[in-house]
């Protein structure tokens, strides 16, 4: 009944993020599109490691002894922090561009002004 619906949901997130990244002109909306692509990729990494009828891989008061795969969850932690570092730097650039050009429209920022 479920089929491959979780994989299709992750791919829909990535496609929506790509649409926002290409077709919007405000600087903050471009940053939101980049963040959507990162969220879709992290969700896809976690859904790769699911086994049917299993619980979380922690032995403290667990339900039963069959557990999902723990390795993709450990790698997704690192990926989330790297996404955060990228978003912090690109938001700092957006603040500096707005202070210098007095506009936040990406199609009016064309010439280098000293």
């Amino acid at each position: 009944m479920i089929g491959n619906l979780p994989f299709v949901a992750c791919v829909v997130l990535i496609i929506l993020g790509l649409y926002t990244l290409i077709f919007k002109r405000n600087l903050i909306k471009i940053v939101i599109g980049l963040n959507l692509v990162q969220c879709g990729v992290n969700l896809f990494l976690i859904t790769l490691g699911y086994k049917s009828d299993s619980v979380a891989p922690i032995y403290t008061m667990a339900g039963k002894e069959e557990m999902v795969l723990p390795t993709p969850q450990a790698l997704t932690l690192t990926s989330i922090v790297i996404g955060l570092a990228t978003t912090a730097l690109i938001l700092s650039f957006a603040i500096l561009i707005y202070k210098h050009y007095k506009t936040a429209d990406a199609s009016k920022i064309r010439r280098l002004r000293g």
Partner: protein
Amino acid sequence: MMSKIVRTITNILYSSILIFGFYIIMHGHLTPGGGFQGGAVVASGIALVLIAYGYDTIKDWIKKSNLSILESIGGLAFIGVAFLGIGTTFFYNFLANSGTLFGNPTVIGINPGDLNTAGVLPLMSWAVGLKVLAGLGSIVLLMAYGIKKGDEK
């Protein structure tokens, strides 16, 4: 500086957020959590105080140089603990299943947890938690300083 209701609720909630974040860092080897998650929770508490009171009041309470010292201590402690087991290999867990500081052995199978177990892992979890806390707090404070510096010219 936001309204009176927001400042009152922030005064009540700030200590609860700090205690919850440190609880998640400390019990990283028994329940879901660990260093990164607890550090992010405490940094969101710092961001709440910054939004409620404005940057001019905050810069006497939380200084940027103190956060920088905390981050350096966290990073050096992480590498120092990794170097202590260099007799066998780098990153060796030399305190697990021994009798000293964090060295009780665990019961195999499903059990309620014991805080005294898991060797080197709580020390490394504290170091990474301090580093993430100071890093995220520094980023938020620097962005607030940058916005205010551009407004007054």
